[in-house]
């Protein structure tokens, strides 16, 4: 078994104590919630923090409350299992329940938190390897090396945003609150992400993601489709999050389409969304929108299956997600 590097573990009881510890310990410290991403990465030496600040005791990071007409607050420390099982989320934000249920395995969903999933380290199969393996190939720029092994001529890192919940929260237009000793800020979740495999988040090292706010859900339908090889365990090699709001006459009032696992950040298909707004969702239109959305997918050879395949599947998954929402609405008859 791979060994964890040595570290100190601090267990604050309040959010303010936690932010103070992070500030005091400086960049050598990292917060840890479920640990399901961080600890394996530490075993492989992607991270070697001297200090871990445990977030599991913080009540400020717990709780799911609200309603579809005012919106819902989710504590970042809630587990993926509790989110996927929560009646309010299942009924009104189904895409989020589906995405949370699609992460890894039941055991890891019982430990892993939504905050941890949002801030999942970007992934690449040249990077998510043991120290021995990375030493053998000569390391990459994301850790210990200087070049990108996927695209050796590239000045940047192409590690992939692989969180299932991230594209969904973007499509749902969620906001997140970050807290530090310097104060707190609430931002649209899009602003949490950078298109940079090496530094994929705008979160500062001393900030703690406290909570996620979902806007009111009335009139919205949403879904999430995940491409992966197996029914469990796998990270997405494509995630498609779609949220739609229909007008009483059946036209699309608003549409959000976000792609996961196609770049270093969740990618919004703006052109496709614009094409949908105000239109009747005919099969021809949905196909056209799917093709437009897929233009935003530029996979590289650093995840499972082939680039061509992942590219080819994108419009199919987008169209299937759109079909599901449109059919469900027509099937229910109401609204």
């Amino acid at each position, binding site marked *: *078994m791979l060994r964890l590097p*040595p570290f100190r573990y601090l267990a604050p009881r309040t959010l303010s104590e936690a932010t103070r510890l992070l500030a005091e310990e400086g960049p050598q410290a990292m917060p840890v919630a479920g640990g399901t991403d961080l600890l394996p990465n530490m075993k492989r030496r992607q991270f070697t923090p001297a200090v871990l600040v445990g977030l599991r005791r913080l009540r400020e990071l717990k709780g799911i409350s609200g309603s579809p007409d005012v919106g819902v607050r989710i504590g970042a420390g809630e587990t993926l299992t509790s989110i996927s099982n929560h009646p309010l989320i299942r009924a009104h934000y189904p895409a989020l329940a589906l995405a949370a249920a699609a992460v890894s395995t039941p055991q890891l969903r019982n430990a892993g938190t939504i905050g941890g999933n949002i801030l999942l380290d970007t992934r690449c199969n040249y990077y*998510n390897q043991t120290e021995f393996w990375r030493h053998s190939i000569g390391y990459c720029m994301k850790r210990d090396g200087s070049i990108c092994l996927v695209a050796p001529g590239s000045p940047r890192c192409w590690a992939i945003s692989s969180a299932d919940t991230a594209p969904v929260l973007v499509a749902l237009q969620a906001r997140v609150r970050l807290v530090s000793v310097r104060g707190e800020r609430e931002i649209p979740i899009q602003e949490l992400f950078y298109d940079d495999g090496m530094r994929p988040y705008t979160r500062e090292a001393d900030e703690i993601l406290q909570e996620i706010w979902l806007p009111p859900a009335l009139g919205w339908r949403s879904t999430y489709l995940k491409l992966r090889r*197996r029914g469990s365990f796998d990270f997405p090699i494509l995630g498609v999050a779609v949220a739609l709001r229909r007008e009483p006459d059946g036209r699309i009032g608003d549409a959000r389409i976000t792609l996961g696992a196609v770049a270093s950040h969740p990618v919004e298909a703006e052109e496709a969304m614009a094409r949908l707004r105000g239109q009747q969702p005919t099969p021809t239109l949905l196909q056209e929108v799917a093709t437009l959305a897929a233009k935003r997918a530029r996979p590289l050879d650093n995840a499972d*299956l082939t680039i*061509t395949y992942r590219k080819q*599947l994108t419009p199919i998954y987008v169209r299937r997600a759109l079909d599901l929402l449109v059919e469900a609405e027509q099937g229910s008859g109401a609204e």
Partner: protein
Amino acid sequence: MDEWRRLQPRKAGPYKVVGKPLPKVDAYSTVTGRAIYADDIILPRMLYGGLLRSPHPHARIISINTRKARELPGVLAVITGEDLPRKYGILPSSQDETALAVDKVRYVGDPVAAVAAVDPDTLEQALRLIEVEYEVLPALMSIEEALARPDIKIHEETRNGNIHKAVSYEFGDIEAGFAAADYVREDWFYYEGNNHVPIETHACLARWEPDPHDPIGGKLTLWSSTQTPHYVHREVSKVLGIPPSHLRVIAPHVGGGFGGKSDPFSHEICACELARRTGRPVKITCTREEVFLIHRGRHPVKMWIKTGVKRDGTITAMHFRSFLDGGAYGSYGVATTYYTGALQPVTYALPAYKFEGMRVFTNKPPCGPKRGHGTPQPRFAVEVHLDKIAADLGVDPIELRKRNLVRPYSRTINGLRITSCALEECLDQVVSRSGWREFHAARLAREAEATRQSSPVRHGMGLALSTYICGAGKPIYWNDMPHSAVQIRLDRGGGVTVYCGATDIGQGSTSVLAYIVAEELGIEPERIHLETADTTLTPVDLGSYSSRVTFMAGNAAIQAARRLKELLHSVAAERLRLPPDRLESSDGFIYCIDDPQVALSFEQAVQLAEARYGALVAAGSYAPPEDIHGDFKGAGVGPSPAYSYSACVALVGVDIETGEVKVEKLWLAHDVGQAINPLLVAGQVEGSAYMGYGEALMEQQIFRKGRHKIPSILDYKIPTTLDTPEIETILVGQPDEEGPFGGKEAGQGPLLPVIPAIANAIYNAVGIRIDEVPITPDKVLRALKAARSEPGERPLPPPRVTPIVLNERWPARLIRWSPEQREPRPDPTNGHHQHPRQGESAPHGAASTSSRLPQKGGTA
């Protein structure tokens, strides 16, 4: 006349234990975490050992400097190749490994140095402090590269480039066979390599007990997660120069093997040497990545097959070529090479058969035996190829197969003796249980319905057949001794202790010993204490490979138990004043068949027998019969005392938009003869089906830039519970005359037909052929797009297996052999085929008399 048959005829049914779905004897300890695995053992003063492995796929070692590591506080020993220079290898013909690299490294992961330290952190630090200077050499990463670059030799010892082994055989008249054909077809296939992925990673613990009065200096004990303690015993003894008498190898609970723990390994030898040097116990536990690097998994094999058939599908000749990617060392590879060719005539009766096989070295982790050892690859090729021929001829694929099935109690064209064989029954069962005929009849209606519902999923059913050995007919190193032995000791309190070298790797071999002894002695299995897989305590069993354990250890156990039973019955007969032949044993009593009230308890009988005969200990042993194979060089791979047979039907759904394949159900009929425990047999069948499914659709040991691309069980895809199809197990067949209680193997055979059945089902569903395993969705989609391109589209060409072009003739001398004058004749003595008694065997490979041949339906 063979003694164990003389002792008593086969116990008359109904059986009390055999055939019952009992839990494994170690079920509770295994599922509650109480079972002790190698890594669970902790000894006082134990050190942690580890290996420094090569970061380069192919390099010359210029220098190794271990000074900094040795000087690190807490490091007790550092060793390198020069400390263990003696070469070894599982096969006597492939002694090409050293425990630590000498001069060269041949794959990423090749061990270079070993360290023992007081704790794992010091160990890790010490491994980093070892400085190795390499001269990097070009790496050969495929069969094609290995053949194209004979100038870059991975092993200096090979005579011809990087060809490790090449063989060439012609059985019967191949030219006449093809001349008699109405139709001839050729195909190329490729089967990617894959790993065993046992849940327990390899681990071992070595202890040296010094003794200054012993000229050897002490005794060594090795606990190791191994399938083959006996062979580890031999090889460790050889490399360390310690006589076998001073070495004890124990396999504790083993968490899965599937062939991956059948070689003697560097970490085992190094742990022993480090323990000897430090005088302290040394444990080495491999990481998951190291399991992928140790490997010994499924060989990638490229295959060419050409078959001639009559118009009705009757095969007139088959020519089969295999090219094996062996990785960096020999391992079992010579045997694997033979196995890619040997069993083709055991499934279908081939009147003429030519087989050419070669194994090449590459700079990848060494390949070896994995469940089905060398036969899933040709099974995939043959069964898909025959399906294509059936389609070409417009013959029903079932009819085509039925015309060519081997017959029970026959000889194959390559000289193999076939005894019981319920292949046709297997085929009939899967066809009827799966609703094959109805499914195919409803094809048009089903497609219309899919179109009407605009569903992208198309369904298909495919079929395949196979056979597998029940134990290799020959041991790995040549000798006349038994392949398995069992010793039983009866305690005067009524306790029974069974000793056997058989190694339970989860398949249930220990449980099977308990059931068999319980059945023979007429006691409950829980009364039996089992000591297994310990080279000091237990008589030799060669190991858990080639599906041999139930068959061979089971027969040895029957012999040992019958010897004791004879003693018990003799004293019971006297006490009960009955002739011994009126006695039977069951439920803990020895009783009169005619009046069960006249009885003696098992304990009473044991006490009387001990008073009469002294300590009650008996041994039994088993070796396969001699005359079960041809008399040509190389005939030792393929023969077996019996063969199991399997048939599989797969039902798949293929998404024509995404290329995703879902296997919805597998029907697997397996001829196991008599199931000793049908629950364990079903477990083996389901496990095989699961593994075959994974190999068919997702598993692949692949490399990029000289490195294993995905050495973790997150990225290396094996199916999860959610992916695993529904599996219906159908046990068929009659008790085999040679098998224990008529039992045959179940651990490997059922895997074989699953892969081609799925491939054939995909073709049936969407009309495309992927002749390369695994059949991943990208390949399916590519083939679908190539087949259905709209005007104006320019799709990629469909996936195709690139043929291997040899510029010279086949690099092995052709051996021609025909089985004339070897037709089975009735045995004049009785219906049972006999065994050579220990020490009386015919010379190896020599033709012996036909009186040893079996006869169907003989009187028992």
